[in-house]
């Protein structure tokens, strides 16, 4: 097994179990605190990584233009704050497995964007993939209705 595959498996494993740790944390602490702690740790890890690995270090931030800052700020708001907030909040009402599976369908949004905005056409395997994803989501949602 190549090192990149091993790293990919580590990524999936870490993403997979972080939600379980968070669910356990939310038994004792409020959602806001749980998200805040997670963001603080991520922040310091990124600061450390930039300090040790990135070529130009922190001086890059001076030269970044306003629109680029804006793009990343919107991405951060949507992903780290709104997305995670809603995702973690859903743990209070449905099981982690269902919540994680439903929220993992986000590539469909990218596909919809590619079709509507960019006018891209889908290959057969992508159409099958969309069908399977929607079927899986329907199954999980109907499981909740029973």
């Amino acid at each position: 097994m190549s090192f990149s595959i091993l790293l990919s498996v580590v990524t999936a494993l870490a993403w997979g179990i972080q939600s379980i740790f968070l669910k356990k944390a939310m038994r004792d602490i409020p959602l806001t605190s749980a998200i805040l702690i997670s963001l603080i740790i991520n922040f310091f890890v990124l600061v450390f990584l930039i300090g040790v690995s990135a070529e130009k270090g922190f001086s890059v931030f001076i030269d970044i233009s306003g629109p680029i800052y804006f793009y990343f700020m919107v991405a951060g708001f949507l992903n780290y704050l709104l997305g995670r907030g809603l995702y973690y909040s859903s743990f209070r009402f449905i099981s982690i497995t269902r919540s994680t599976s439903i929220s993992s369908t986000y590539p469909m949004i990218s596909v919809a964007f590619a079709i509507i905005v960019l006018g891209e056409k889908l290959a057969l395997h992508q159409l099958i993939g969309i069908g399977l994803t929607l079927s899986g989501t329907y199954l999980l949602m109907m499981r909740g209705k029973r």
Partner: protein
Amino acid sequence: MSQWRGQVEATLSSVCFGIAPIFAKKGLMSGLHPFHGGLIANGTALVIMIFFAFFSGQMRGWESIKKYGLFFAILSGICNSVALVSFFWAMSIGKVALVVPITCTYPLFTMLVAYFSIRESEVIDRFTVIGTLLIVIGVILTI
């Protein structure tokens, strides 16, 4: 009703997770290193969250936070960071076509670990297993 609320929240989070990379991609097209972009994105969320926690009065409850909850919140944060680093590392040395589909299997790990660790609060029946498998296979095919 609460069942639907949880599902609506999970679906909306998926929309947010789907739109965010479009903006991140636009930012990265400038040639900026992902760690720098990640720090701006994470820093923005952190600042807003601190303001929110401060003005909503939730900062006052921090001294009463139980160690058990804090421990697992820290573990969750560490896992997020490990995922972040290993993902970028894998992307930098491996093929995107291989790395992205493998990382998309994370709901399977959630299901597996949840089954063994929090069985008392997780209902994992055949519908959940089949639904999760269909979503994971479907997402891999779509990418």
